[in-house]
C-alpha cells in the first residue's frame, strides 16, 4: 500500500518522531511555534480597524501599506507575505477569497476559519457572491459595487470595513469590540447591537 494513504494520525506521529530525531523540528520548537501562532487573532485586525476609524493618518498608512500599519500596532510581519488592505465605502463592498487554496491574512486575523477553507465558499465567492453573503446575513444593496478579491499569489488581503453609524465619540477599544473576523474578510459588516 502507498504509505501516504496511512491514517493521518499515524503519519503525523511518524513524521514528528523523525523530525525530532533529525533535529529538524523538535518538540520544544513545535510547542513554541504553536504558542506564537495562537497569539495572532482577529483582535489584532480589529485594533487596526478601530485606529483607522479614529486616526486619518493611520488610515492612509493602512491603505497604502498594510504591512507597515500592522507593524505600527506591534504585529510581527517580518518574513511574512505583504498585507494589502481594501477599503469598504458607501459605493463599494470588498469580499476576500482564495479559490486555489486558503491564503488568509493570518498575521492580523489568526488561523483561517473553517468556512474560508471550504469548497463551497471558494467556489461561490467568485460567481454568486451576493446570494452567498445573504446566507451570512449580509445584504449588499443592488446599487453598491461588489468586488471579490481572489488571493492567488504573494499578498494577503484584509478588508477595512465602514464605521457603523451611532459610534460617534467611542473609544478605540469600544470600536475594536465591534469588529469581528468576518467583517475583515467582507462576509459581514460591523453592527452596533
Amino acid at each position, binding site marked *: 500500500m502507498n*504509505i*501516504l*494513504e*496511512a491514517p*493521518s*494520525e*499515524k*503519519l*503525523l*506521529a*511518524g*513524521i*514528528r*518522531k*523523525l*523530525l525530532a*530525531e*533529525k533535529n*529538524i*523540528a523538535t518538540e520544544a*520548537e*513545535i510547542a513554541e*511555534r*504553536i504558542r506564537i*501562532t*495562537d497569539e495572532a487573532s482577529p483582535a489584532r485586525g480589529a485594533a487596526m480597524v478601530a485606529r483607522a476609524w479614529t486616526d486619518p493618518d493611520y488610515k492612509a498608512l493602512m491603505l497604502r501599506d498594510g504591512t507597515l500599519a500592522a507593524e505600527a500596532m506591534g504585529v510581527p510581519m517580518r*518574513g511574512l507575505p505583504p498585507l494589502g488592505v481594501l477599503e469598504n465605502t458607501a459605493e463599494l463592498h470588498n469580499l476576500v*477569497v482564495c*479559490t*486555489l*487554496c*486558503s491564503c488568509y491574512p493570518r498575521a492580523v486575523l489568526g*488561523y483561517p*476559519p*473553517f*468556512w474560508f*477553507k*471550504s*469548497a*463551497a*465558499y*471558494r*467556489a*461561490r*465567492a*467568485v*460567481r*454568486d457572491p451576493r446570494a*452567498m453573503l445573504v*446566507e*451570512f446575513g449580509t445584504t449588499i444593496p443592488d446599487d453598491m459595487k461588489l468586488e471579490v478579491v*481572489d488571493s492567488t499569489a504573494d499578498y494577503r488581503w484584509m478588508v477595512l470595513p465602514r464605521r457603523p453609524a451611532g459610534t460617534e465619540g467611542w473609544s478605540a477599544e469600544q470600536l475594536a469590540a465591534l469588529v469581528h473576523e468576518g467583517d475583515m474578510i467582507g462576509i459581514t459588516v460591523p453592527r452596533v447591537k
Partner: protein
Amino acid sequence: MSEATPRAMHDLGGVSKFMCEAVDAEPHALNDFDRTVDAIRGILGGKKVMGVDELRRNIEAIPEADYLRLSYYQRWIRAITAHLLRQGVITEAELIAAMEDA
C-alpha cells in the same frame, strides 16, 4: 463555459457542483493534530526544508477523492510527508519504523 475547462481539482472558483452548497459557517475549532501539523509546516518553511509553494504543489497532487475526503490539515500532513520523502529528508523505511514505534 468554464465547466468544460481542464481545471485542476483544487481550482474551485465558480465550479458548478458547489454552487448550490451552503457554506458551513460553524466554527469547527482546531484540535491538537491541526495545530501540530500547522506548526511543523511553519518550522519546515522557516528552515527552508519546505516552502509554501511546495506544500501547495503536494496538496494539489492528492487524488481528488482523497482531497475531498481529507480534512484541511490531513491534506497538509500527507503533503508534508510526500515532500520529505521525495526530497530524501526521510526514507520510507524510516517512516514505516517510526510509525510502528510511535
